[in-house]
């Protein structure tokens, strides 16, 4: 199982890009942390989610 923003999902083996494509996230508005480190944008399609990974997708909203 892969933990994403607290929810356990059965998506081990998928790439981060593949997972994000199944969501409503706007890739231009997010930063992704995986096991304590930021995932570089250029690595989304090469980052294979592993069993036990903990991922947080931070999705920014406007205003400041």
């Amino acid at each position, binding site marked *: 199982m892969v933990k994403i923003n607290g929810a356990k999902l059965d998506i081990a083996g998928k790439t981060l890009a593949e997972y994000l494509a199944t969501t409503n996230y706007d890739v231009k508005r997010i930063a992704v*942390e995986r096991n304590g480190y*930021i995932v570089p944008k250029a690595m989304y399609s090469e980052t294979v989610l592993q069993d036990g990974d903990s991922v947080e997708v*931070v999705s*920014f*909203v*406007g205003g400041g």
Partner: protein
Amino acid sequence: MIPTKKEWDEALIKRQGEEIQKKFAGASIAICGLGGLGSNIAVSLARAGIGKLLLVDFDSVDIANLHRQQYKANQIGKYKTEALLENLKEIAPYMDIEIHTAYVTEENAAHLLQGADIICEAFDNAECKAMLTNIVLETMPDKYFVAASGMAGMGSANSIQTRKITEKFFLCGDETSDVAEAGSLVAPRVMLCAAHQAHTVLRILAGKIEN
């Protein structure tokens, strides 16, 4: 009369303690975006006796900014960098201030921000927020980064919070209220978020971040 530097430092030490004050005085903090978040972060950090602020914004003061940003009616039309420099010099005359009137991009971010120990993201546009977050965390891993997301509308003050995302990345705000949907930004709620960011900077410097 403006107090001497010695009087100034003594007053800060009296209120904040010598050990912490030394850490604040030795710090260099960058603020990207000088609107409702950035101008209020800057004022808080100036009052706390931070040694140096690095202020970055491309924009000018507009009449629509005055309801929540630290500018004055007679500064409309001035670059925010220059207007805030004037105001901060009145608040904290001995603080070192460096200004860059520039639009932050993936290409110039490393150069603009190289002198900072901690970087505050204080833009209003969500894509610009994400761009700066990714570029700083990817290419400047030694720097602390304090970002903001979600402070629009009339939601409760208590929903504004600070979360530690990684060892160096902190996120302030309610993370949901988008100005495009909420339709408004009011001074206290934006200032609350800016205060979370400024206080996170002070806690990092004081070595008080435990989780």
